[in-house]
């Protein structure tokens, strides 16, 4: 009985198998779900999608009060001037690491000393002309603010006379190469202290009050800002000496003492901005904000200087009057000024920061998932006609409109990612004349 039952069972399972196979075969031949169109003349749309770009965008350029620049991996020095952004003078400040100096032989004789700098590869401006940089010794202790930051407008006192100076043709492209600024008399003083085991080099505290740090400043020549690697193995004082005086030896083969850059959060880049004769000339007189109409229908973005375009939306409140309307997507269309990015390339990605009446840089704009929103760059490399960025601001608008009130003072600042903002000169000149900055809204009515 049981055996019979099992047989019949097997037979029926075979039947099911055939059935399943048949079903699979039929399924494979079916129209894909997203390609099925039969019946399309019966359906009656209740939703309509419209795209409009007529909502006004007020564009201005904001100069941030300050932007922290400490703890970055590049030390900048130099001066650069152009017709768009005015003149930027950049000084980098840093301290030195204390180390235990091993005893030198009586016979050791000082040779020379230099501050050694390594190109980071980044530069702004003219690198075919001579650039003159000075090294100064600080007379004031570098002290970060209570939040542990130092800002682009922070400065510390240094000796008026430089310890050393160099005029050179910058070659930032040559990856490994270094430049050395001779600091011979300071080097000798330091060598003697080490050799004679002076109090000043006996402990970290003594050392840091003796050598408070250096500032690399622009001298009097050149139109470039050069980036140098800012870490203890690339930014250092090198003191050379010889043990026997018998033969002249090449400097590289001489014994040396190295003193590397100190803590990274004590290193920062300080800027002096001079906007005279530039479109942004009056920016400081107008509460650090200038409408694009007063700066040649352009808005300006430059990382480390804290110049950021600002967008506000004066007519969006009108959207709230409409019933049965939803914003599906909102994007800004941003065109760089034509031919403004030939020498200095456009930033790859732009980010937005929320801002308020006081032009503070608040939190970075994020999408519905909490990820930062960034732009897409459409490059027209052949004709340079259709190059623009798009950036999605749907979450911002929906958020702002959700309480049925749109605050005009709530705007957006266009910037770079947080790291580039504090450590690069990446720049963008935004067109707001022909065409204007556009807000493209995809609206659903139902």
């Amino acid at each position: 009985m049981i055996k019979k039952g099992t047989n019949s069972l097997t037979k029926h399972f075979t039947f099911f198998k055939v059935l399943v196979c048949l079903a699979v075969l039929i399924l494979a031949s079916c129209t894909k779900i997203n390609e099925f169109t039969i019946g399309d003349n019966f359906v009656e749309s209740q939703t309509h999608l419209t795209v409009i770009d007529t909502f006004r965008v007020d564009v201005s350029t904001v100069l941030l009060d300050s932007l922290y620049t400490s703890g970055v991996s590049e030390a900048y020095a130099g001066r650069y001037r152009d017709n768009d952004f005015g003149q930027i003078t950049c000084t980098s400040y840093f301290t030195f690491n204390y180390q235990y100096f091993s005893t030198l032989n009586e016979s050791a004789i000082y040779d020379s000393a230099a501050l050694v700098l390594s190109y980071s590869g980044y530069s702004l401006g003219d690198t075919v002309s001579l650039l003159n940089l000075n090294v100064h010794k600080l007379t004031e202790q570098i002290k970060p603010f209570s939040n542990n930051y130092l800002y682009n407008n922070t400065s510390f006192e240094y000796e008026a006379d430089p310890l050393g100076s160099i005029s050179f043709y910058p070659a930032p492209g040559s990856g490994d190469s270094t430049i050395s600024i001779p600091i011979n008399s300071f080097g000798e003083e330091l060598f003697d202290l080490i050799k004679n085991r002076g109090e000043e080099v006996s402990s970290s505290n003594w050392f840091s009050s003796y050598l408070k740090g250096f500032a690399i400043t622009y001298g009097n020549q050149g139109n470039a800002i050069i980036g140098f690697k800012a870490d203890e193995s690339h930014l250092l004082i090198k003191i050379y000496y010889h043990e026997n005086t018998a033969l002249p030896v090449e400097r590289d083969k001489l014994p040396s003492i190295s003193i590397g850059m100190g803590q990274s959060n004590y290193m920062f880049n300080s800027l002096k901005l001079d906007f005279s004769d530039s479109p942004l000339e009056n920016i400081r007189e107008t509460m650090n904000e200038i409408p694009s109409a007063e700066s040649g229908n352009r808005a300006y973005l430059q990382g480390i200087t804290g110049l950021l375009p600002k967008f506000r939306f004066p007519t969006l409140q009108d959207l709230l009057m409409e019933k049965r309307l939803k914003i599906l997507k909102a994007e800004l269309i941003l065109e760089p000024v034509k031919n403004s990015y030939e020498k200095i390339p456009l930033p790859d990605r732009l980010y937005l920061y929320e801002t308020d009446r006081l032009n503070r840089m608040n939190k970075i704009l994020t999408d519905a998932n909490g990820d930062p929103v960034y732009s897409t760059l459409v490059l027209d490399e052949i004709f340079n006609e259709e190059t623009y960025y798009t950036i999605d601001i749907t979450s911002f608008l929906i958020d702002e409109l959700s309480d049925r009130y749109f605050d005009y003072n709530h705007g957006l600042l266009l910037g770079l990612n947080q790291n580039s903002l504090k450590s690069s000169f990446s720049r963008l000149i935004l067109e707001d004349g022909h065409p204007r900055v556009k807000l493209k809204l995809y609206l659903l009515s139902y």
Partner: protein
Amino acid sequence: MYKLFKISGLVLTLLLLHMYNANSQSSSSPYSLFGLGSLETSSLGPGKGMGGTSIAFRSATYLNISNPASFSGLDSLVSIFEIGLFGKYTSYASFTKNQSSIDANFRYVVMGFRITPWLATSFGFAPYSTIGYNINTKSDVEGSNLKYSKVFSGDGGINRTFLSTSFKITKNLALGVNASWLFGNITHRELSETYYYTLEDVTYLSNFHLNYGLNYRFAINENNFSVGLIFGDSKKLNAKNTTTIKTNTETEVIRGRSSKYSIPRNFGAGLAYERGFFQAGIDFERSLWEGTEFKNSGIRSRNCDRISAGVEFPSFGPNKGTGRMLLYRVGAEYRESYFIINNTPIDYYALSFGTGIPLKGVLSTVNVSVELGQNGVKKKDLFRENFVTVHLDLSLRDLWFIKRRYL
């Protein structure tokens, strides 16, 4: 035990079909866009092999829920449990294109048994109508020269759970009443995957409904005849509509539209002839849909008829009359649509072939039937559906009052 294996086998098949469905087009018909959707007939497994013919048949070895008087035919010692599944392949042809789809699902589960010599009952779950479509279109983005894809989809339908009671008035006459709870939803959706929005219009429907049946049976020599009559009055369904718009960031109920849905007055008559293992029958049914309103333009309702005929005969040869005897069924059905699109009816024609395969060792049968047919016509703005439907019905009989020695 074996029954369990078989049921799980069926369920497995169904699940497999269902899984594939999730990845491909699953649709009952784009015509189910209108009104209550595509109407289902109430014939179960064996009836499906005979063009749905069932009004005059008495439930004996199978259940027949078309006529609530039919259960008086049940044997007093047997309870019957029936479960039905189907798989349907449809190809659609319009003037400009040919497309196809597959649909598969569970259809019904019914149980029936006799309580006293004059009272029998049945209860279960079966569909009244189904909605299933998925239509891809391209719409304009106004204010630009872009187009975007928009999908119109629908699902739901009216289900009924019912309790039927048959009373044997005389040896020949049985009356029945069926109480149904009709419930379900009609969901139409309009969505864009590119712009992340969905407009969903859901109408929940429900009401209680009664329908009645009569079965009169008489014999002339070895020839048995029966007459069946059925009647159900029209009934308004309680409707509750909500329309919701969902975007990537918000969900809003935008309205509760008032909508009217009802099921029509319906009556039918059937004749059956039975001799030995042979039986034949015809059905005639009319539903008074006229007056029903449709939201869609160009659609109007009409009264519609259903006519079907079918025969069942046993396999010849040594198995005839034994527990291993196969039954064969053939039938045809013609069904008028309850709506007319642009003055064209969407009528349904089908031929059906079926067989009842007894399972060894147990009092159970697998009924398989294949329905071949067409629905609608190929015409301007309209399309024809040609379909093959496989109906699978498992009828399990259990002897309630016999204690088996070996289980």
